[in-house]
Structures are given as C-alpha cells and as structure tokens.
C-alpha cells in the first residue's frame, strides 16, 4: 500500500520528465527517421509517414473506372493489355492517359462514363505502372542506409554510392570496394582530423584555465578584480572580428593550415570562459579547507593539485564537455585556419552539400558527427556525482 502511494505520489514527477524528454527528442527523431529514408521520399512526405504503411495507390480507383472493361488484372482487352509494359511505358504522367480517356473509342462511345479527377488519374497510372512492372520505384524500400554510406565515403552524386556501384558507373575516385572510406572526401579521415583538432583544443584551455583560476581564487595580486571584469567582457569578443588580424599574423609565421594554429586559436577563445567558470567554482570552495592545508605546511602548488583540482572535477568535467563540443562542431575556424587539405568533420559535411543538392547527406552526416560527443557526455557523467564535498564542508 505504501509502495503504491509512493509510486502515485511520484507519478507527476515522471510524467513531467517524460513529457519534456519527448518534446526535446522529437525533432531529432524526425531527423533520424529522415536520414534513413530514400531521398525522394523525404521531399514528398513528412518523416512520420515512414511508419504509415504505403497504401495501395490507385487500386480502388482502377476498380471503379477501369476494371469493368479491362478486367481485374488489366488483360481483358487483348489489344489494350494494361499489364503489358510496352503499353504503359509511354505514359510517364497521368495527363497523357487523360488525353486517351477523353478520346472516344473506335465505336464512337465515350471511353469512360465519367472522367476521374486529376488525382484519381495519377493514382490509376501509378497502379498501372506497378501492375505492368514499368515502375518499381513505388516499391522502393521505405528505409535505406544509402544516405549514411554516401556520407561516409563522401559521395555527392546524382544517385547513391550503392546505386552507382550496382549500375557500374561509380565516380573516378570511388572503386566500390570500401576504399571510399579512406578517400580524402570521406568521413573516416575527417573523423581522425576532428579528434586531432579537438583533444588538444580541449586539454590546453582547461589546463591553463585551472592555473589561472586558482590564482584568481586563492592568490592575491594587483589588478585582480579589474582583470576579472575584463575577463568577463572578453567572453563576448565576436570570433568573426578576430579572423583577419590573427590570420595576417599566422600567414607571416607560417601557422596557416597547421593543427598548432587551430589548437592555439581554440585555446585563446576558450580561455576567458574556462577561467570564468573554473574561478567561480574554485572560489566557492570553503576557505577553511585551504587554510588548514596551508597550516599543515602545504605549498600553493600542493593545494592546487591535491585540493583544488580534485574538488573541482565536476566543473572541469562540464567545461571539458562543452569545450570539446564547441571545437567539434566548429566550422568557421576550421574553414579559415585549417582549410580543405586537412578537412575536419564539419568541413566535410559542408562540402558534401552543394548549392543545389545534398541536403539528404546532411541528415546522415549530422548523426555521424553526433556519435562521439554523446559518448563523451556519457563518459563524463560519472564525474557529476553527489557528495564530493560532503565530508569536508564546514558547519
């Protein structure tokens, strides 16, 4: 009885959480579903239609208007065999079929009693094209992984990579034997490049920021508060304004197109926020903690790495997640400072999408690039555990 009561009492809590989660995840689910649909489908119907069984288009209309003369399977009139591909092939659009229906039959009687409306005509033609085997597209699978294959191998052709391999006309740089995975336009190489950009660009700012934040929290020096205000203001410096002056210097010292240049840039831009966040966390630690360590003869250095760093793990963990994400999802810095010779994932994605085509690749590419950040998030979550400070708080 108590158990039931407690479940009932907690029911609203669960409902609210589940409701929020559903709202949050629905747009992404839409993208996920769209990414596994054939590209023509995506333009024609909403993603949820992927779960609605395809109705047998035109069957009903065919029965209503045609079956009485042409028979159920279309073969009743030999000279107008509707199940013969040769007879149906010429009608690519229903409007041509309409013209035939408008013409009277040889004996002068109208072809049909009552003309179907344009939508019905279109449906009848779709049915006939399937019946005669002209078209198999309507039976195309509802789900496909070809968007993912294309994104992985960096293939932005008119047809999908698999199709063009099956048809035997793959692009010059794809040999259809999986070598596409290592092609310079593929995602595999870009994935490695992205990692190589993101890891140092995450570690460096956090390392430097924790030093600086310790100084801001527990050391005394002139201009401490003024520098802190400047630090807050520096967070807003718009990235776009710094591109040209920094690039000018990079071009002179040869840092353009190098990983080092990108690491330093991300470090520089990550630092103001990293220091700000870490200082706020470190600063809120109880003073007694440091004073007692100090009285025990610990140096600042010991206090820093034995006390401050372990205690601020949750803050550093969340900082690491976000710095990693910003670098991982950054396009502009990679575009400008790294360029296409060492493409990162975002560069590869933006390059797959031409001005007129390739939106279907974005859906798959967005998911491929999401995988690692999600793993990082799950891995870091274990640092957010209650009670790191539990025993050491005064009072």
């Amino acid at each position, binding site marked *: 009885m108590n158990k039931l009561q407690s479940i009932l009492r907690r029911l609203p809590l669960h409902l609210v959480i589940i409701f929020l989660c559903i709202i949050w995840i629905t747009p992404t689910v839409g993208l996920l579903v769209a990414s596994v649909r054939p590209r023509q489908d995506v333009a024609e119907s909403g993603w949820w239609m992927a779960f609605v069984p395809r109705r047998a288009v035109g069957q009903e209309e065919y029965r209503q208007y045609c079956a009485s003369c042409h028979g159920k399977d279309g073969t009743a009139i030999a000279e107008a065999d509707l199940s013969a591909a040769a007879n149906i092939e010429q009608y*690519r659009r229903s409007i041509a079929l309409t013209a035939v229906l408008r013409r009277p039959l040889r004996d002068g009687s109208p072809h049909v009693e009552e003309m179907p409306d344009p939508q019905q005509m279109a449906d009848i033609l779709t049915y006939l094209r399937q019946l005669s085997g002209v078209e198999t597209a309507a039976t195309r699978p509802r789900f496909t992984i070809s968007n993912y294959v294309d994104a992985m191998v960096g293939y*932005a052709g008119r047809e999908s990579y698999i199709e063009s391999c099956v048809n035997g006309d793959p692009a010059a740089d794809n040999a259809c034997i999986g070598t596409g995975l290592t092609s310079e336009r593929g995602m595999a190489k870009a994935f490695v490049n992205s990692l190589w950009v993101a890891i140092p660009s995450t570690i460096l700012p956090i390392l430097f920021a924790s030093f600086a934040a310790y100084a801001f929290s527990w050391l005394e020096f002139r201009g401490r508060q003024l520098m802190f205000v400047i630090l807050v203001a520096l967070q807003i410096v718009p990235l776009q304004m710094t591109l040209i002056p920094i690039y000018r210097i990079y*071009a002179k010292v040869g840092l353009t197109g190098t990983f080092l240049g990108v690491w330093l840039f991300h470090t520089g831009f990550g630092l103001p926020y990293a220091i700000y966040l870490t200082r706020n966390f470190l600063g809120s630690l109880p003073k007694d903690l440091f004073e007692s360590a100090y009285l025990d003869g610990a140096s600042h250095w010991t206090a820093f790495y034995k006390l401050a760093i372990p205690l601020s793990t949750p803050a550093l963990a969340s900082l690491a997640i976000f710095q990693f994400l910003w670098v991982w999802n950054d396009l502009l810095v990679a575009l400008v400072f790294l360029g296409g010779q060492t493409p990162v994932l975002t560069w590869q994605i933006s390059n797959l999408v031409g001005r007129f085509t390739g939106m279907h690749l974005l859906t798959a590419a967005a998911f491929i690039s999401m995988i690692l950040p999600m793993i990082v998030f799950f891995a870091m979550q274990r640092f957010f555990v209650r009670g790191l400070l539990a025993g050491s708080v005064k009072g």
Partner: protein
Amino acid sequence: MSRMRWILIAILVVAGMLLAACKPAPTPTAAPTEKPTAPPEAPTEEATAPSEAAGCMGGEGGTVSMIGVWSGDEEGTFKSILQPFLDRCDITLEYEGTRDLAVYSTRIEGGNPPDIVGLPNPGLLAQFKDYMVPLDDIIDLSQYSPAWQSLGSVDGTVYGAFFKADTKSLVWYSPPVFEAMGYSVPTTWDEMTSLMDQIVADGGVPWSCGIGSGDATGWVATDWIQDILLRTQGADFVERWARHEVPWTDPAIKEAFQTYYDICASDTYALGGAQGTLNTSFQESLYPPFQDPPQAYMVRQASFAGGIIGEQFPDLVAGEDYTFFMFPAFNDEYGAPMQGGADVMALFNADNPAAVALLNYMFSAEGGRALAASGWGLSPNNNVTADDYTSPLQGRAAALMNEAPAFSFDADDRFPGGLNVDYWQAVVDYLNGGDLDTILERMEAKANEAYSK
C-alpha cells in the same frame, strides 16, 4: 628554389604563353594524352619546342591551390572537367569549395590567398583588386566578347574571367502536360497573360515561385524583376541601373516590382501566394510542374534547374518531359533579352606557372568544350558553339543565348558593397507586405552609400 630555376621557369612561362597565344584552336581529339616528357628543369631550347608543352600551356608539374563556390556534386563535375588536363601535365589541384564570404576575405586580406579564386560574384572583384593579377597578359582574352571582358574588369583592367555561365530567362514546363491541356508556349507577354488566365480558368495554378535559399533568400525574385525590366525597359536601362545611373525610385523599377508582385504574391497565379513564394526553397519550387498531377504549370529558373528536376524525378526524360521556353517579350522594341549569371575566376599568384597554365586551359576553347561536354553549364568562350553541348537542354540554352537580342548579366551580382544583400532583403520585405515606396527609398539610400565608396 634557386634563382636559376626561377629564371628557367619564367622563360618557360613566357614561351608557353607565346605558344598559347598563337596556337590554332586545338581540337579535343588532337590533345596529347601521354605525360609530357620534358620536365620543367629541362634545357629551355628543347622545352619550348615540343608540342606537348603547348598542350600544357607552359606549366608542367606543380600544385595549384584554389578556392571556389562549388562543393558537393558540383565540385566533382568541376574536377572531372579539369582532370584530363591535370593528368596530362602532372599538375595537382588542391581545391576547396565554400560559399562563406568570411573565408574569401580572410584568406585574401590576410595575405595568404590561394593561387586561383572563384569568387561568388563579380561585384567582389572591385573589393579585391589590389590583391589580384591582371589577366590581360595572362590568358587569351580575344576568345571572349568585349561584354564578358568588361564584366570582369575593374577600372578598365581585366581581373576576372568567366568559366561557367547559366542562362536565367527561362521558363521550365512540361511539354506533355501543355499538350494534353491544349496550351501552347507563349511568345509574347499578352499570350503569357492569357495562358495564365486560361490555366486559372481550368482550375490550375500557373506559377511556382519559391525563392527560399537560406541567407541568400530573395535572389530568385531579383532575377524575376530583372527579366521584367529587360523586357519593359531594355538591356541598356538595366545596365544603367546596375551602375546606379537610374535611381531605385524610378517609376519603371517600381512597375517591375509590382508586375512581379502581381504574379508571385498572388493567390491565383502563384502556388501558395506570397507565403508560398517566401517559404518554398527554390529547389522545391522546381517540382510542382512535374508532379503527377501537376500542382503548377510553369517555373522561371536558370538553366541549371534541369539537373535538380532530373534528380528529383529520375523517370522523366530531359527535353521531352521537362524543358524550357524563353521568358516571353513584353513588346517588339526590346524583345526578349537573355539574363545570365556566371561565376568569376581570378588569379592571385602569377608566380606559380601551374596556376597560370590551369587558368589558361580553363579559358581556352578546349576547356570550354570540356565544360560544354559535361552538360554542367554554358561556356562564354566564343569558340564553343551550340553543337559542342552534349545535353540537349544545355545546347538549347546556348542557342537561345545566341539568338537573344541582348545578353544581360545578373545585375545584383555586380552591385558593389554588399548591396545585393540589401536587395534580397528588400524583395523579402516587399513579399511580406512592406510598403513598396518606402522599400525603394531605402534601397536608394543604401545604393548611394554603396556606390560612393
């Protein structure tokens, strides 16, 4: 690299240029396919002599860096056009495709530009002229009409050349649908208006007008307005307007805006009315005339539209199930001029012989024919004829371009100082119900600012 080698290379470049300048127009079959035997370091007397050197335009071996607007499948097509030349001359092309203007500005003004830059529009030439190499002495410009040369010029010096052009004054439609409905292709604006009314009377919607294009939303509408202006005021007027010698508040411009609005913001003439026009991307706007049953009957879009239609409807046959006619003339005086657009190429590093050679190839008759054969776009090169196009649609577009009484380059692509962005936003504002006089006055003020620099 030693001084001596630079001198040798310089001699090679000059020799190659001389050969390129007086060479007979090469036929594609005559092009040597084997790798040239003479490396750049070879003694000069021999290096200049063999015909292989001419086939390489004086630059063999080496790496060319390039930024351009083409990415995705367009990048693939572009590279495949150049590939035979690159292979034969052992040149490596490092190409990056992006439309982000920040990248162009940063690389160029930051002092480390790629060898060749394909700029998004010729209006940018003036901005970067201090960094570019004049092309007069570098490529054989005689193959390009004075009009194309002047489009690529800043203050009388040619800095930009046009590799791929698109014709814009085209109306795409479905011939089988027109035939079945008993519609005929209109050749005058009067015929067009009666066709539109006929379609409405038959219960259809004449136009699909979508203009959506991300942060560039609006350019489709500006193309429409230019087509109307070309037909009501003539190509000279448009030319003067592009140079801001006609104020934006001119009644003729206002009238063109209104003519556009009366069609594309109308619930009867345009699919979805003004909101349909604003919210439909220009890609999606190409589909309705070819859906079954058709949702609309016509869509005004450039020659590249065929590729998008073909991709969405793989079962339709180009030229039979979808094709285009010329946006009809309004009167006999101005006829139906052809509006066009093209991406402009500029050279930023004349010291790289391979880059000079590649540019020379792209702007040679051979390069133009390779583009024509790819079916990707039209070549502005005089030596490329309508017969060089393998795709029937591109051939027809090329023929229409030649037949047109005038060729008028997309005006907003030539506006200086980012005025094109203001123009796009102005048409969006207008379709959203903004007051036209206010919008045009604001455009005039912005134009005064942009042209005064």
